[in-house]
């Protein structure tokens, strides 16, 4: 297991829809979704079971952050190339995302 995870697990897996996160999962541990199919969970046995159940790839925090940052920077570059009208209509530049 990675050594820089702190109190969280970092996973990469596509949201498969119904059953991906159940109400029982949500009651047992905190889970947050981020760009690039990155998921961050409280580091407890139940969240590790969730990762295994969904065949999620375990990442270190820095690996997960790199995935998120690459996605966001690509979106920001796309937004920067928009016309002024499209920028005004778009409700803002995609924000930088820092994982917990």
């Amino acid at each position, binding site marked *: 297991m990675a050594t820089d995870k702190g109190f969280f697990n970092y996973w990469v897996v596509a949201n498969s829809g119904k059953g991906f996160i159940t109400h029982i999962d*949500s009651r047992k541990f905190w889970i947050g*979704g981020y*760009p690039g199919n990155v998921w961050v969970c409280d580091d407890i046995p139940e969240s590790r079971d969730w990762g295994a159940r969904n065949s999620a790839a375990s990442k270190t925090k820095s690996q997960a952050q790199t995935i998120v940052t690459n996605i966001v920077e690509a979106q920001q570059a796309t937004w920067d190339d928009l016309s002024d009208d499209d920028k005004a209509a778009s409700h803002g530049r995609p924000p930088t995302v820092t994982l917990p």
Partner: protein
Amino acid sequence: MANYKEIHGVNVEYRTGDATAVIGDVWYNSVTGLLKAYVGVGAWASGGNVNTGRYGIVGTGTQTAAIAFGGYTSPPNLYRDETETYDGSSWTEVGDINTTSWLRGRAGTQTAALATGGGTPPDNRTADSETWNGTSWTEGANINTARTIGSGGGTSTAALVIGGYTDTRLAIVESYDGSSWTEIADLNQLRDGTAQAGTQTASLAISGRAASPAVLTVVESWNGTSWTEIGDVNTGREGIGGDGVSTYALAWGGEINPGTRQAITEQFDGSSWTEVADLSTARRYGASAGTASLGLAISGDAPPSTVATEEWALAASIETVAFD
């Protein structure tokens, strides 16, 4: 102070075991000597993914029979006309709306819905209204004031459109009688990006933005005649989602300052708002459907536009009543 019997007409029941889960049940366990209760604890779970993730999408219906339409994707930067329906497990693309648009008002059900106003390319606002009959969209009576982000609610023949944005934020409210829109009493507060819960005659305008960058915590209640400020949400947000009735509502997601998408969920019990379980995917300008006890958070801007649907449900949880 009234005691339990004076309020409920019966004494607290003595039981030798813990009861079958029914939310609201209260009993005294004579074996353990503990006062117990079943309380409703809400949580989000994954629902089926939408086919086209987008933001500025709007929706209506129930948790097992919902409809969502319109929106905007970025990238690619496109206004959307897709309509999708939900059966409680998966989304299916059905007939497109006629006016490609985002940030519309909404009302009705999966088989009788209303879309009002919204934003159209390149950066215009429309007064257009459309009705959905379960199969296709038909042009309806236009609202009086073209706007984006005007929240709405009610049925397809008895609806409201509340606030929104033209070149400035609006307090204007319009009411629909099935054939035409009439301007009624203004909100107390200019606002857009507001969530709505309730009906044409009993509704809430929840949070939103008053003027950039100030988000509102103010909630207003409509009684069919006038708007009254009631209990504030704990965290003001723009692009907040919500549903329910005027005395029991759910509000989720949104954005505080530009770039700070939120997963926060709050529940209204008729007098105050309480923060409850977070969404798993923070988002703004997603679509809402359902009720405060069985709700849906559909797509929205994470970013990028997420395909994720989340389903809110209450489950009975056995609690021991503690005394100080």
